[in-house]
């Protein structure tokens, strides 16, 4: 019998076995493909509170499923699997396993905020998408995003020294995100950036004097100095320590009772 509504079949529920005996009857061969039931048998009515604990998810419980968010969604126009309305429903009923299935597209929200503008119940779906992405990250379902890694490096330097060193932030960011610095220096945007900042076009035009005169030597020296000696801002003292404690405290308060590590 042909299978109708094939799209509803979850590949994870397809089971094939070389040898299959059902009720004592050998059905190996042609009948060896079985589809496990897709019936939902439980809710998790408090799960939405977990999402609410992430910034942006506060209003998720207000949703009444009108679908305005999905209809207005920039991403939905490109990929109809990107469906904020659906994920909000899953959050409110606590269908976690279904949410995890979409972990590879949920983060694609471009934060255009059309959904938030159109939502009649002020759910702020854009915030929910962010909260959901952060939950997936906190639960280890998705790797840390590049922006999270950047924020972490930026914050680390702020707290340690009361200041950041741009070059160090970038170097560490490239390293943590697995970007090949050598390759980027050889070609691509980083090379272009350095060339333009240093007026390499003057060199190419043969205007060597002008080029040398405009080389940012002092800045270059400062940059190198800071990279090596990592100076702290004046009278930084215990400020970093206090800040770190405060941030940890705030995180603990925001995610109280979640039982999952936060980023």
């Amino acid at each position, binding site marked *: 019998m042909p299978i109708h509504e094939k799209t509803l079949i979850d590949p994870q529920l397809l089971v094939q076995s070389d040898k299959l005996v059902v009720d004592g009857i050998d059905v190996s061969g042609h009948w060896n493909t079985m589809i496990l039931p897709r019936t*939902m*048998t439980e*809710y998790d*009515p408090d799960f939405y509170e977990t999402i609410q604990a992430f910034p942006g998810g506060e209003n998720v*419980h207000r949703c009444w*499923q009108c679908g305005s968010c999905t209809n207005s969604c920039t991403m939905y126009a490109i990929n109809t699997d990107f469906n904020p309305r659906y994920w909000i429903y*899953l959050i*409110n*009923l606590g269908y976690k396993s279904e949410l995890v299935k979409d972990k590879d597209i949920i983060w694609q929200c471009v934060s255009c905020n059309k959904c938030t503008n159109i939502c009649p*119940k002020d759910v702020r779906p854009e915030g929910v998408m962010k909260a959901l992405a952060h939950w997936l990250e906190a639960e280890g379902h998705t790797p840390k995003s590049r922006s999270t890694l950047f924020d972490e490096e930026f914050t680390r330097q702020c707290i340690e020294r009361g200041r950041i060193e741009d070059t160090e932030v970038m170097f560490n960011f490239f390293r943590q995100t697995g970007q090949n610095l050598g390759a980027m220096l050889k070609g691509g945007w980083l090379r272009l950036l350095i060339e333009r900042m240093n007026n390499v076009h003057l060199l190419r035009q043969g205007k060597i004097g002008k080029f040398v005169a405009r080389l940012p030597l002092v800045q270059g020296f400062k940059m190198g100095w800071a990279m090596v000696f990592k100076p702290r801002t004046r009278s930084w003292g215990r400020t970093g320590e206090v800040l770190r404690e405060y941030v940890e405290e705030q995180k603990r308060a925001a995610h109280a009772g979640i039982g999952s590590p936060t980023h």
Partner: protein
Amino acid sequence: MNDAVLVVGAGPTGLSAAHGVASVGRRVVLVEKQDTLGGAPILSGYAKLVPSGEWAKDAIGRMVKRVEDSPLVEIHKGARVTKLGGDAGNFNATLSNGKTVSAGAVILGTGFTHFDAINKPEWGFGTYADVVTTTQVEQMVGAGKIACPSDGRTPERVCILLCVGSRDRQIGREWCSKICCTVSTNLAMEIKELSPETDVYIYYMDIRTFGLYEDKFYWKSQEEFKTKFVKARIAEVTMAPDGKRLLVKGEDTLVKRPIVIPFDLVVHAIGMDPNEDNPEIAKVFGVGLEKHGFIDRDEQYTSTFSSTRRGIYVGGAALAPEDIDTCISHGLAMAMRAVGEMAASRHQRAA
């Protein structure tokens, strides 16, 4: 020409009509088939009314008292009209208690009958003790305790099934009963107030909390009382293998997947049927019924609240499913129609 008005039915509609007629100094004969005045809110033991939040026995109790205290209202309890002769301006009614009544006009506030959930056997009412109706939950709220009838335990999880006996061609109920959505969201909040640990789920096709009931009941129950709304029309309710909990089966329309969810208590949000006495009422009063069996009415714009027979007015839940506030307005409007019509015919005679 007789100046009295015969009011049939002493629910919110009839009580309001009786008061209206008496308030302009006309005599009223109020006939109620039950031994108690107040209609469904009192007879079925409703808890707090929508939208006032007042206990039914207090709110409707005041309406009853006002009518009972009026010297112009003659009340016949436990009585029915068995015969009605005469015409507009001059009706003669015979009551089941043997009395006869003369009246210039008749107001029918004969109301409705709760849908009997046994007519949807697949949803388990009458089969399982823990399948109850909204009326029963109203009574539980009135008694101050939410419990499973089977063993008295406090339910961890309750579901309310909307549209039981409404919007269902299969059983010839093609109408929306109008108030069940609001009543159910209100009950969800009351359940949560009495038992904060209980989770309440509402299975819906649409939510029709009309007018101001939208945010005061639907939104509030969802946003402040954690009521979960699941878009699913339930297929059947069965007993779980543990012999204790009930399994609610259906399709969650929004995730396109079958669901089988265990619940401790299943509540049917029962609709409003035409009064089961309507065929008899139609015969006795000579009024028509509309296609669903509610009492039919005449042209509404200039002959407001007229039945199909001149001099007989009909309003409230006798016309169609209706909420209490609207029934009260209908009652007053019918009083206006009745005394107005009688005054007009007196002027005519005088001229």
